[in-house]
């Protein structure tokens, strides 16, 4: 990946880190989950309001690093309004796309924003924590 792509990713992460989308809690909420990365102390909480299998509202809180926070923010913008199934498929696709030999996602892919985290292989867990937590939230029932 070029230096420009790296810079663009960093800008995106910083933008979401400094002005996150959908940060906070949801009340009422139909689903929730907490995720932890014991290696670094990152903690993510995801709240969902699911209606007819669709994510009508979503909120997150993160205690942790910039990539964890930014990823959670980016995730909420991607999945909001989508069905639970679509969200799960996106999560699986993201995980696959971050594997070392995976081909890069096309620029118009909703997950393209996360592509840059491949530049920081030691930080991929920070990026995927929010998505894992989302999946656990979808499996939960309040």
């Amino acid at each position, binding site marked *: 990946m070029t230096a420009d792509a790296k810079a663009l990713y960093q800008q995106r992460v*910083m933008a979401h880190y400094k002005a996150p989308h959908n940060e906070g809690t949801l009340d009422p909420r139909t689903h929730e989950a907490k995720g932890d990365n014991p*290696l670094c102390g990152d903690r993510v909480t995801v709240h969902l309001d699911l209606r007819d299998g669709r994510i009508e509202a979503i909120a997150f809180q993160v205690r*942790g690093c910039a990539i964890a926070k930014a990823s959670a923010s980016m995730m909420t913008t991607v999945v909001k309004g989508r069905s639970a199934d679509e969200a799960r498929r996106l999560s699986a696709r993201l995980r696959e796309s971050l594997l070392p030999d995976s081909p890069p996602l096309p620029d118009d892919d909703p997950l393209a924003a996360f592509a840059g985290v491949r530049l920081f292989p030691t930080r991929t867990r*920070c990026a995927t924590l929010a998505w894992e937590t989302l999946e656990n939230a979808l499996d939960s029932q309040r």
Partner: protein
Amino acid sequence: MAHPFDIGSIRSQFPALGAVVHGQPLTYLDNASTTQKPTVVLDAIRDAYVQAGANVHRGVHALSAEATARYEAVRGIAQAFLNAPSEKEIIFTSGTTEAINLVAQSAGRVRVAPGDNVVITEMEHHSNLVPWQMLCAERQAQLRVLPIDDHGDLRLERLPVLIDPRTRIVAVSHISNSLGTVNPVVDIVDQAKEVGALTVIDGAQAAPHGPIDVQALGCDFYAFSGHKVFGPTGVGVLWGRRSILETIPPYKGGGDMILSVSFEGTTYNEVPYKFEAGTPNIAGVIGLGAALRYLSDLDFDAIALHEQDLLSRTLDMLDSMPGIRIIGEPKYRAAVVSFDVQGVHPHDVGTVLDLEGVAVRTGHHCTQPVMEHFDVPATVRASFAVYNTREDVDRLAAALKKVQGVFA
């Protein structure tokens, strides 16, 4: 102040230091984690395979004799490095972690009975903590922990309360890998001896800053790792007092640690071979020997002066930067500094530093109790070795300013 030795010449002996990382020259400040290797060590390892490519202790052919000679010679080198009374007290292990597990499972099992206790400290690396937890759980003994104060020094005044006639083992690190604290090991060993407890010193961080004198320290066991003293990974040394080694059972069973084997009965080999089962890390041990010789040829006093110069430069620099907090302010400190940057997660600090070519360690440094004590999830740690320079400190400073710029 001029360098007490020719730093340029030393650096040229470490090929890895010439690396370019993310387009920047490498500034390697993660020596507490592992050290770079000088050419003499790399050559010794290669030569071990090219000129002495045979197993040790097992053949009558020339290559085997050569391998055995090179391997066994390192016992004497390690003995000299530690000022141990005998090279028969030098056991080769896979590292400090295995060494401590060896003592816990061998000496620990025969010495620790239900109701006894083992004393460690709050600043121990997990490798000098978990083996004792495991032992105490198995033997129904109590694990007692000597706390640290907010400076990162051991609260020595608590030790007489913890050590009592049922204390069987006292295990302590010589130097803390996360705080840099240099512990008063002699005092601790003296108190342990009064109740007849075995003393085990984790010397992983201390060995590179040497010299180590196990006779002066008075301890019963001393362990260190090859990869932290400019040697290869996968090898380490456990020194143990002969009188104790002869009374404790072997830790691993297999080839080489026996004299004779039959189904009716097996007799064990003499010390130290009793504790070295199977084909050892031959090239690793030979590489370790070259590393210890390299280190001993350098002047330890000169190294200490150099590292303390880098350390004080770093401490001044960190102190002068707003928003940076140094974790721990021990009375005596090796060239290891943990710190955090206000409002920025340590991993984010580490990533920005990495993009500037600066390698530090971020995380809990395998000392989760220390992190809890200072109520931080993790810290950024910079640690120095003989080949670091003042320019390295300046580059760390510049990179930290960049972190603050990015996250402002």
